[in-house]
């Protein structure tokens, strides 16, 4: 038995996770006993696509995958007049470091996602959805497979769900280990059986997506929110959250906290509440040195900024972003250079290699970090890092991965220049985490 770490059970802001923990919630029976699939039935029987879109627009829901784009607006980009098939593609690639909310959601309630998918299909006139699930998620894969089989059995997936003339089908497609598949156009390439390299836009997936057809791509959590919105109305959802960031979102808190877990919070809750209260704060005797508010791609915030709100615009205003909702907390016993270096390794490893700045820049950065950590760096290396970060971000890369790599360098240097300088100029690691510093310190002593 693995212990459930995060939100579950009744609470005002547990819109998604309220039922989590219910015995056998992952089965269709139990899910339906708690009102599951009622909204989908209503969406198919009573609601026109326009009405669903209007509810979602009214809810103010913004994508939970990373970019925070208003979901209703995104749906409206799907052209109505192109004949032929169109697809809903579910982004369940979740590979952003520090992010585990989609896994948590599906493991607890696969049907919540599937119901949301059905609603999205109805809203854009699609009959076929594809769930792109990362290959390592064996557990969620099995659960979704079982859940889809149950739905087929029950006729909810098939030619006439709930006796409506609206065929629905959901297919699973497994990824095979590539973070870039989370990027929507790379995901489509991968779904088409190609090397997952992002496409240049336009054309946007809404017009020319999977197999050249109009395609809607949404994150798991975004879609799983739909049943609640349709059941209670967009207005009710918009009661939660802040002015521009409506509703609740799931934050997976990890790293140096006492109670890591996936917590559903109302948007606008401060990170202090999330990290210090829900997640129990850093280990005894430690301080929060730095945290990533939205996955490793979000520029870092320091421990002094704990009072920042989870509001997406507030985060953007102070130079970070809500991102994927993965909150990584690091305490003051750890070295920022080492952490940044580890993340750069990640971005270099996951760079698809299509566009030049990301391919070359991230690799160059890794080699520069290696030199810094080996105690062979000088002021030049800080200049190189600065140059690399400048040419990675600002939309110069084909997709957001390059920007993310740039932000890691940029934000950590910005907040911890002193620590970087200690490494580069004085060959000292203030936390003593980097090997060379230990060696040199002993030598000096």
């Amino acid at each position, binding site marked *: 038995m693995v212990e459930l770490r995060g939100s579950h059970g009744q609470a005002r802001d547990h819109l998604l996770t309220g039922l989590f923990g219910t015995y056998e919630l992952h089965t269709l029976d139990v899910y339906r006993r708690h009102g599951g699939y009622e909204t989908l039935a209503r969406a198919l029987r009573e609601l026109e696509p326009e009405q669903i879109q209007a509810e979602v627009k009214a809810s103010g829901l913004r994508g939970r995958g990373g970019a925070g784009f208003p979901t209703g607006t995104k749906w409206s980009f799907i052209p109505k007049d192109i004949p032929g098939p169109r697809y809903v593609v579910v982004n369940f690639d979740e590979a952003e470091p520090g992010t585990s909310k989609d896994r948590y959601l599906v493991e607890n309630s696969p049907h919540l996602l599937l119901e949301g998918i059905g609603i999205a299909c109805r809203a854009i006139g699609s009959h076929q959805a594809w769930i792109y699930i990362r290959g390592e998620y064996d557990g969620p894969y099995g659960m979704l497979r079982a859940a889809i089989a149950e739905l087929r059995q029950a006729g909810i997936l098939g030619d006439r769900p709930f006796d409506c003339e609206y065929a629905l089908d959901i297919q699973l497609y497994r990824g095979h280990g590539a973070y870039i598949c989370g990027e929507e156009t790379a995901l489509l390439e991968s779904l088409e059986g190609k090397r997952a390299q992002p496409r240049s836009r336009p054309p946007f997936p809404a017009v020319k997506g999977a197999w050249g057809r109009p395609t809607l791509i949404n994150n798991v959590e975004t879609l799983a929110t739909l049943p609640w919105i349709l059941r209670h109305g967009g207005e009710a959802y918009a009661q939660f959250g802040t002015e521009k960031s409506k509703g609740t979102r799931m934050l997976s808190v990890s790293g140096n906290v006492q109670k890591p877990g996936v917590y559903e919070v109302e948007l606008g809750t401060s990170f202090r509440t999330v990290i210090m209260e829900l997640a129990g704060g850093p280990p005894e005797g430690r301080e929060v040195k730095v945290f990533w508010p939205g996955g490793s791609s979000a520029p870092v915030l320091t421990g002094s900024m704990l009072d920042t709100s989870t509001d997406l615009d507030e985060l953007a205003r102070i130079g970070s972003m809500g991102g994927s909702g993965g909150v990584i907390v690091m305490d003051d016993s750890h070295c920022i250079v080492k952490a940044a270096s580890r993340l750069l390794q990640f971005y270099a490893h996951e760079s698809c290699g299509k566009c030049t*700045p990301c391919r070359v820049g991230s690799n160059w950065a890794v080699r520069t970090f290696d030199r810094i950590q080996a105690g062979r760096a000088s002021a030049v290396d800080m200049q190189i890092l600065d*140059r690399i970060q400048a040419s990675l971000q600002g939309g110069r890369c084909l997709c957001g991965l390059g920007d993310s790599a740039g932000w890691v360098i940029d934000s950590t240097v910005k907040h911890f220049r002193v620590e970087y300088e200690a490494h580069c100029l004085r060959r000292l690691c203030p936390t003593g985490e980097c090997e060379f510093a230990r060696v040199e310190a002993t030598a000096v002593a």
Partner: protein
Amino acid sequence: MPDQEAKETRQSPQPASTAQAAAPGDRSPDRRTQPEPAAPPPAPELVSISIDGQEISVAKGTLLVEAARRLGIEIPVFCYHHKLDPVGACRLCLCEISPGPPKPQTACTTPVAPGMKVQTNTQLAVSARADILEYELVNHPLDCPVCDKGGECPLQDYTFRHGYPTSRIDAPRLHFQKPIPLSPRIALDRERCVLCYRCTRYYDEIAWEQELTTDQRGAHAFITSQFGEPLHSVFSGNIIDLCPVGALTSRVWRFESRPWDMNHTFSVCSRCSVGCNVTLWERRNQLVRVTSHENDAIDDGWICDRGRFEYTEVNAPERLRQPQLGGQPATWEAALQAVAEGLKGRRLGISLRRDVTNEELYLLSRLLAGPLKEARVAMEGRTYLPPPQGETLRIEELDTCKAIVVLGADTEKETPIVNLRIKKAVKKLGAKLLLINAAHLDLDRWPDSVHIRPGEAGLAAAARQLIGHELLQSGPVGIVHGQGPDETASADLVAAAQELAGSCGAKVMPLYQATNERGALVTGVVGRPDDLVGCDAVLCFGPPAVPLPASARFVVAWDTVLRPAHGRPDVTLPALSFAETQGSYTSLEGRVQFLRPPLEGRQPLRESWDLLCDLGVRLGLAELNRFAGIFQIQRAAAATFPDLATLANPPAPEAPPRPVLLGASRP
């Protein structure tokens, strides 16, 4: 394969539709049944934009890089190539565009829009490009002094014009094993590669093959042939022209000369009947390189490997330089006299090289009408196809076809570039593809092709069954046909193609194969008995088209080199190669194109028209004496054969391209 049924319907009058409709319903509805709405004929709608303050109006849909080029503003590009779909991968073409998001954007993927203002020389754009160039050099080996690309290398030129003036790179470089033979003719240097993916995209998009691919990802990605096996495609050489750096080089030309050491002329390929335009590169009177010379009406910028690599014989040390009589050196005078005497009164057979010129054919037609009336004529590599009947489909018209029928032809082997043109028409322009052939073809790579396997009744019958097929009803149809399995079947095949064409208003393209086969047919030189059976004298102009008959007692070998198939000829005449010959070819579509020989046929070599006239006079055809030069022959040929009318007005040789564009500012 799921659509095996769809592709392999046997002799069904409506193969595609029936099989498609019967496809199992479990599959999600897919694009196959939904053709993209066909692009209407391009209306010349103009869009005005400004680039760096200069106004320009260009056709709607034009990409910014092209518009800028027209203004003489260079936006550097690596991944962009005008024949490939834009991908925006290298990020070298970043510009500032307003209105638009507040970030630099790729000019290679952005089409013009009314009122667009583009700036290529702002601080942001200039440094963005310089940064990319710096990145391209981070791992580059900088072995420019020994690089074949040096001198015509965009990486060098762009860095010179757009890059940082000083190097800021002090890190060790990534290394790859190098150079790697991709095939006996192509070498790959992965350290020089900038991963613009032009080569793999070309392979995938244009040639429809994936034997060249990218392995791994990120900084460790590299170009490779599948499992390291040699490339086999007949279109592989184009990747050398495409590569913007010295990563893909020709092993045939490798370390041969610096590009600026060569002279070049724009000529026509002599390998087959398509008539692709080529650039021939000369150095010290040797032909050292052949590259494509883009002509959108014919080759669309591509040539096949035969044209690109099969030129080395021109420089062969064993080239014949001197006439020989019975194996002994002789004067031209003595040799030609011996030929004239040897031919007289004998049952003569003539074997022609595939790339015989129109001018030579004209003179031959005069000889065949006079002293050599009884001769049989064979031609190297020709088909059984009869002379063209009426107007034939032109290669560029393939682009406008809504459906293309390929009947009894393996275009990949027979007329390679026509194969690529069909692929373009199908993949990029949305034509439907119907194949009638017993064999599996290269064109079968198109998943939506309708492949009809002829039954017992043969190709012609299968073609006739297509009459009324629904795919042929929606617009211009092109019928491309080969020669069929044998001479009798060939006549029927041609008739069937004509009938099918008549039924749907299609045009027909008979695929002649020998370089100037069509010229030989319209001049009436070939078309008579196609063999040398029973001949006791044989004049071999070029390699023997068929094995020399045992009855031959007098053999003349008139060729660039002596070949085993020539046996031991009585007279040997040295011939000029295509790189030295003046003249013209008639391509399979009937286009007359002129050769621009880059090499001089140095003494004692003589022009073939000169020799034919001389021989004619010796055979009693005195009027051939009045031709003092090739222009007169061309005019005479134009007057005699309407199909060769162009010969009277040879176009002026093409001017060399404009030198490099002026660059945008340096950082």
